[in-house]
């Protein structure tokens, strides 16, 4: 066999075997990876809506999904909003928990972020950031308190703390929550937040 045909044969064979192998591994792990993602969203829904035992998707668009958290009797215990926006370095994905009347934030969980470790990444920190979002008034836009204050009770009902040294990341989260707020209010006015509505589906994410 000439050299060039040998080169072609070997490279083709290597590529072919590698492709086949990867297809197999991809096939074998695909379900588990999808399950991991789904579990993560489900866990986050139950974490931000106290009293909920199941999540039902009631509205979906790009980077913005609303779930109704239902208790055992099927009553709406609150809403969970899966939303995303631009952070300092990359997309920040978060889950926002609201009470059933959309007037109060239950809690906030960050699902994905690539902010600066030690600075912006503190947006995932419970004690210095996330706790300040709990119980905030959702009927008006939120604002940042700078410089930060402690304890959580010392801030007003629409104020959340800024992280020292990470104003941009704090603002990014605020921006994401405030724009989610506008969308939610609009959806509610249009009557699209009904868990029995035609858009509603059992959580399939």
């Amino acid at each position, binding site marked *: 066999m000439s*050299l060039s045909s040998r*080169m072609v044969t070997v490279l083709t064979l290597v590529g072919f075997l590698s492709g086949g192998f990867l297809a197999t591994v991809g096939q074998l792990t695909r379900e*588990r990876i999808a399950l991991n993602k789904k579990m993560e969203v489900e866990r986050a829904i139950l974490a931000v809506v106290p009293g909920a035992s199941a999540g039902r998707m009631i509205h979906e668009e790009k980077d913005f999904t609303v779930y109704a958290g239902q208790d055992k009797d099927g009553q709406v215990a609150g809403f969970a909003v899966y939303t995303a926006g631009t952070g300092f370095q990359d997309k920040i994905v978060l889950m926002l928990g609201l009470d059933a009347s959309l007037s109060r934030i239950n809690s906030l969980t960050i699902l994905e972020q*690539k902010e600066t470790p030690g*600075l912006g990444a503190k947006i995932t920190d419970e004690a210095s950031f996330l706790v300040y979002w709990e119980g905030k008034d959702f009927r008006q836009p939120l604002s940042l308190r700078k410089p930060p204050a402690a304890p959580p009770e010392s801030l007003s009902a629409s104020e959340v703390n800024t992280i020292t040294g990470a104003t941009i990341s704090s603002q990014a989260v605020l921006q994401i929550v405030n724009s989610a707020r506008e969308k939610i209010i609009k959806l509610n006015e249009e009557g699209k937040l009904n868990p029995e509505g035609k858009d509603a589906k059992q959580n399939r994410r």
Partner: protein
Amino acid sequence: MPSKTAAEDFFKGLWLENPVFRQMLGMCPILAVTNTVVNGLAMGLATSFVLVSSSFLISLIKKLIPSQVRIASYIVVIATFVTIADRLLAAYFWDISKALGPFVPLIVVNCIILGRAEAFASKNTVGRSVLDALGMSAGFILALFVLSSIREILGSGAFLGFRILGPWFEPWIIMVLPAGAFITLGIMMAISIQVERKRKRG
């Protein structure tokens, strides 16, 4: 320096030819993922898996590959193992996979792996290649471990995620940033060169 015994094939990776401190390969992951010990170790283990598997396979098929297309073939082999490692991490170690983010796919371009394939696995028997890869992996993990320990202790006052320094300690934020990685690596490199000089002098 050519090694003769199986023990030498393995142990040279730890110090004499340590991939990080002696060969200065794999700097990208060393700098990028050593801000916590867990990330450093996970990266080390994922890289080891790829390094050992690809050294084994490349050494096994070295006679079949014409030398003109060897680099392309090695890269395909390495990329295959990297993708497998990436998928397995995502399937079974979801949290670690999320923390390592884009760095796992980048193992493909980690020069240690292609370097060992080219310098060792393509010229030696399967057994020796695997030993060499294991030794290099151990040396790489060791370097990642030392660096990430220093950075996590000084940068977060913690080790393996547990706070070990009291509240009096103000974490040096620079240590978890890329600049801290360069500083730590530079100091480690200086120390290792100094130690090696002393050792050579007798």
